[in-house]
């Protein structure tokens, strides 16, 4: 200590600013992306999903075969260089059909989720924001819809509209948004009472401003998480209907009816069920791990 020279004990110039912030600045989305990136499982899910989507779009386009033309000379072939996944009992190329089916399934999942998103967020948002009697009436409607069995509704609709993609999407959209609406309502009720929303009200902000600037940005994270769980549910719903024979009808391919088809030949030609099942499982699993990862990444309570 003796080595300190005396002039060091002169009063120092004020140079440092005690209010400055040293940490790097991160926006909410940058921070969420950083968290997600560090989650290996979720990133794995994301990569698998991207790969599957690319294949679903590209594979049927570049394939020499299409999903419906029958080559009766080439029936029941095992997987080979010509037919990666083999062929079925009509001689259709399964590689093309599986990716075509994936495309259909993903499309149904995404459209259903988009409809859920729009209806659910609007309905839940209006119900929570206006509250009181409006909320009460809207919630009773939700309860009624919630009590209708989805499968029953789907089958009735299919009877009226005929089987196909349209019926499935409508059936799902009619009931699926209820979960989203409930979630959004609950979250908005929470955020609405936060002091920053009160502050906006005391500044004289109109409802539109409060909803767009304050409420939605604070529930959007949760909504995204919910969507990653809705997409696989809708895909599962489609596959189930197709599997029991009331969904997508051959020759159109979907993962559900491919698996149904394959099930009949499981003993002798196991590849016919294995490939669509693997793709189907990978989609569901990937969405679920990605959803979990997103939940951890976007949850403000976990934020440090």
């Amino acid at each position, binding site marked *: 200590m003796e080595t*300190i020279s005396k002039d*060091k*004990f002169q*009063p*120092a110039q004020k140079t440092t600013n*005690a209010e400055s912030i040293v940490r790097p600045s991160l926006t909410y989305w940058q921070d969420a992306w950083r*968290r997600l990136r560090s989650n290996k499982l979720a990133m794995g899910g994301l990569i698998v999903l991207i790969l599957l989507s690319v294949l679903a779009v590209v594979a049927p386009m570049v394939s020499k075969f299409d999903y419906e033309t029958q080559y009766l000379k080439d029936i029941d072939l095992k997987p080979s260089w010509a037919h990666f996944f083999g062929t079925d009992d009509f001689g259709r190329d399964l590689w093309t059909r599986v990716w075509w089916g994936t495309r259909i399934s993903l499309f149904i999942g995404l459209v259903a989720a988009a409809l859920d998103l729009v209806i659910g967020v609007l309905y839940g948002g209006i119900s929570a924001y206006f509250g009181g009697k409006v909320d009460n009436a809207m919630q009773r409607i939700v309860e009624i819809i919630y009590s209708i069995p989805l499968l029953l509704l789907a089958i009735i609709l299919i009877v009226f509209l005929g089987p196909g993609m349209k019926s499935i999407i409508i059936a799902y959209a009619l009931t699926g948004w209820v979960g989203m609406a409930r979630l959004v309502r609950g979250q908005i009720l929470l955020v609405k009472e936060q002091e920053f929303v009160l502050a906006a009200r005391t500044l004289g902000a109109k409802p539109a401003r409060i909803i767009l600037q304050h409420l939605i940005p604070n529930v959007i994270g949760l909504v995204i998480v919910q969507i990653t769980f809705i997409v696989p549910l809708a895909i599962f719903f489609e596959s189930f209907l197709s599997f029991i024979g009331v969904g997508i009808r051959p020759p159109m391919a979907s993962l559900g009816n491919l698996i149904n088809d394959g099930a009949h030949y499981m003993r002798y030609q196991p590849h016919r069920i294995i490939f669509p099942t693997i793709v189907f499982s990978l989609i569901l699993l990937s969405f679920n791990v990605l959803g979990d990862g997103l939940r951890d990444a976007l949850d403000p309570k976990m934020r*440090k």
Partner: protein
Amino acid sequence: MAKPILEVKDLRVSFKMYAGEVQAVRGVSFSLHKGEVLAIVGESGCGKSVTAQTIMRLVPTPPSYIKEGSSILFDGKHEITKMSESQMEHVRGNEMGMIFQDPMTSLNPTMTVGAQISEGIRKHEKVKKAEAMRRAAELLTLVGMSNADERIHQYPHELSGGMRQRVMIALSLACNPKLLIADEPTTALDVTIQAQIIDLLRDIQKKTDTSIILITHDLGVVAEMAHNVVVMYAGKVVERGTLNDIFYNPRHPYTWGLLRSVPRLDSDKNNELDSIPGTPPDLYAPPVGCAFAARCPYAMQVCKEIDPEHFEVSAEHSSACWLLHPDAPKVEMPIEAGRRANG
């Protein structure tokens, strides 16, 4: 002097975060003797709560890490930093009790208060259920709850904040702990209830001769019940001493600032309150030199370059400030900070 019940030496605790390491506790040492009430004072983020929770090993690893070279010696034989979780479970409750700031989150909402206290007793002692319940009722009476025989059948949500804090205190006393850690025990309560709880804690301390570590930011609470005081800033102890040392002969500019920022009974309304300008440093990148230098009105060149060691004022009193170096200019202590009330 008898052996201390708790000896903390060079405790360093860090949190691993995305941006890097946050050094929450940066070398804290103190000791506590039987029957002593030691107050750890400081503002939020100074590391006082992390210190307390590390003594009970309540901070999860990861993200927190106790650094190599840290030592917490309890009762002369337990090296807390090296103990396993199952060993700690025995120590917690049995030999150490903790009172938290928010009693609602630390009580089980699905169990009656009697069941919680008697469970605490039975975990560490072999007694019959009925006997444990009877002891639970006794404890509730000890913490000043009337109709204890009825109260033991109530759930936490049926009680007010003050009552819950009393239950929390009873729970922490269930096994006659040698050490009680009270982490901001009155902060969440209403003022008139605060006074009741402080009274109760002081009363119990006298009756049971328990050693208490009192974590608080409220100098009023410190003045009422502590024997010795440790002042923390930015993860370090900046001053330690007896109650009188700290209140009437403080030597660190941060302690001066703390004492002066509380309005006095007779302080002049027209004057500004003395406040400490600025904000504590972010311990993600602690400054070189003294952490308080950027906010210190007396900062010298040396303060920004070298972190000061503790300078002894007396056997019990020391302060980590370069102003105590023989070469430093003599600084008059701001009058209000060290003034005795009666002259």
